[in-house]
């Protein structure tokens, strides 16, 4: 057993038992971050804060929400939105944060792709990040079921139908997932459980993994420069802060993070109070009705690109393309054969690949929402083909990339 002495202060008392000084040093003051970064490096902190907002607002909503197909809609739209003090605020914060969190995730992902932050020892950061993306997607989808509006019901119908696997006709699997022939009470109950317990637990665990994965390879910087963190940290600690290439996580990095967070929150709360419709689809303010299919069924904006990869093809081909889109991002570190872990702007053909992929996904997103008719159908089809083509081309164009 360790040797304990009479504590001289509360700090000392805790320090002897928890090692808070060491923790503080390892996790904050001597956790070294490169200095050569821009505001895109603050997206992680914004995501953490937004997840916090989702968690806190979710806890308040959970106190009044009723997971019952006869009560759910009114418990959200009347009890929470109108009866409970500030219930409307928590719901708008929750709804808007659920949408905005994906915008930030996409910015975070494309930042990683642009700066090559998934290469050279950073593969696990990328993979854990993609697992988080999947977990957030499942969380968003299950949460969308809960108000039991028209879009909840029909999105639940359409997405669970995917598990029949087209030509394989696994209807039994679909029924097993729903616990019924159609989305009904069993379906709502299990998605409620997933949304408030299982998936949040998974997300919290994955956030731990994602942070842990950063520890050894360290955070990338905006020139892809390899930094000797030990030497630079010594320089910093010796007082030569200006010439050191690294900064402390706390307060140096945190101060910059919080600046970006502050500006982000202005946008966020503007959306919460004055421009929330984009995140709370009007169709979902009609109660679920299994006998009345809405004219247009579309997922929330952040799923549209993968929905559009499913849509332009025949059932089986569409499902294969859809499955491809779901897993292919995981393989990015291995499909990119280039030895260069530098920004895309310095990487030959990859530079064009990056912008083509970004623009293609925006086109897919747009086409995923509009009715699949005429020109939109054609654009969606070619954009989906382009998406698949770009991924197939990736190993080839990166293999012949010159070393910088």
């Amino acid at each position, binding site marked *: 057993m360790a040797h304990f002495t009479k504590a001289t202060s509360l700090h000392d008392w805790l320090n002897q038992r928890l090692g808070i000084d060491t923790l503080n040093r390892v996790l904050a003051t001597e956790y070294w971050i490169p200095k050569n970064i821009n505001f895109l490096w603050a997206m992680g902190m914004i995501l953490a804060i937004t997840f916090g907002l989702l968690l806190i607002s979710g806890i308040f909503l959970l106190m009044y929400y009723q997971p019952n197909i006869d009560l759910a809609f009114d418990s959200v739209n*009347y009890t929470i939105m109108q009866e409970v003090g500030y219930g409307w605020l928590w719901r708008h914060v929750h709804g808007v944060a659920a949408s905005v969190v994906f915008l930030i995730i996409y910015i975070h992902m494309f930042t990683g792709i642009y700066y090559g932050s998934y290469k050279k020892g950073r593969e696990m950061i990328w993979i854990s990040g993609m697992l988080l993306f999947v977990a957030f997607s499942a969380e968003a989808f299950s949460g969308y079921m809960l108000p039991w509006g028209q879009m909840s019901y029909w999105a639940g119908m359409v997405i669970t139908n995917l598990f029949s696997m087209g030509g394989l006709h696994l209807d039994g699997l679909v029924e097993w997932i729903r616990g019924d022939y159609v989305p009904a009470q069993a379906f709502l109950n299990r998605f409620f459980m997933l949304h408030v317990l299982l998936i949040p637990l998974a997300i919290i665990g994955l956030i731990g993994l994602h942070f842990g994965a950063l520890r050894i390879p360290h955070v990338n910087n905006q020139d892809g420069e390899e930094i000797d963190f030990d030497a630079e940290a010594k320089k910093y600690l010796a007082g030569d*802060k200006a010439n050191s290439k690294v*900064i402390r996580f706390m307060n140096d990095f945190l101060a910059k993070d919080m600046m970006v967070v502050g500006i982000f*929150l*202005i946008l966020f709360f503007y959306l919460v109070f004055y421009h929330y419709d984009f995140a709370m689809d009007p169709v979902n*303010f009609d109660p679920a009705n299994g006998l009345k299919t809405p004219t247009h069924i579309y997922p929330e904006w952040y799923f549209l690109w993968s929905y559009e990869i499913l849509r332009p093809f025949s059932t089986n081909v569409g499902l294969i393309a859809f499955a491809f889109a779901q897993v292919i991002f995981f393989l990015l570190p291995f499909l990119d054969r280039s030895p260069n872990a530098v920004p895309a702007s310095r990487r030959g053909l990859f530079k064009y690949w990056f912008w083509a992929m970004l623009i293609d996904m925006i086109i897919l997103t747009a086409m995923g929402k*509009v009715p699949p008719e005429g020109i939109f159908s054609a654009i969606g089809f070619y954009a989906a083909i382009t998406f698949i083509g770009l991924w197939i081309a990736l190993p080839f164009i990166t293999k012949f990339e010159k070393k910088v």
Partner: protein
Amino acid sequence: MKELFILVVVTVFTLVTYYLVEPFAHSQMHKHVESEGFTYKDLPALTKKGDATRGKDLVMGAGACAGCHSIEVAGLPAPMDPVTAAQSYGVNPPDLSNAGVVFDAKFLAALIKNPAHALMLEHKYNEKSGKSYPMPQFYGAGGDMDQEVADMVAYLQSIAVPQEKLTPNMAFETACGRCHAVHYPYALDGEIHAPWTQIGEKPTFKHKQDELAFETKVLDYQDALTKYLGTLPPDLSMYIRSRGEHYIKTFMEDPQAYLKGTAMPRVGVTAEAADKVIEHLENVGDSKRHKREEIGKYVMIYIIIFAIFAILWKKEVWRDLH
């Protein structure tokens, strides 16, 4: 400078995506119907100046309005209870006390002369279908028909509450309430109102039996209405969020513009009454809107101050780092 450039790139891509999935996509999915400002251009203008006293005689007498309609302000009760009325006519004929302030004068005149035409229901009630609208046409009481109609409209306007006294729930009940229920309670001028059913506000009952009896009546009424219209008109509790002001207003103005062949009649309200109906739906489905705007202001001020402090903190911390 480089960071500013990156910010511009991120913002542009975000806004383009937003534009495509929101304004653009919705413009492709939904038909846009422009409001005519409740002017009812297709209906003829009133050419005669009405006289309320003569109008009263017509409404009570030769016009035969009182045979079906109640006029409570004039002490005229309904000839039938709502359920029997709905079972006889399909829908309970409205009380006419406030018709003169809720409905447009041109519309009222056209309605008296030819209800199916004024209500835009000629696709349903015509010679070919052999069906006629439950309310009979007024063929005149022997004099100048335009004058007689103008007199009746003048009478209805004379008994209605003045414009400024028309409350949102009165407008809703007269214009929409006999077909549409609203199952959320709402507050108006500090008073809590019970959920609205097609036969009136749901009273508070001491005995379960009485409550069940009332609910049976509502179901009977709804059955008659469903038979008459082909479907039960939707509950409007959340319509202010699911459809929004523009859609609701233009739909009231011309339901056929959105749903060709719908059994929903043109409502014929004045622009002012339409605003009141919207206000009522806001009171029911978005009752915290004023609070939202008020709190929003304070939160924005708070968060801007927070951002300023965060920027100052960053500048302070990074002074030594450059």
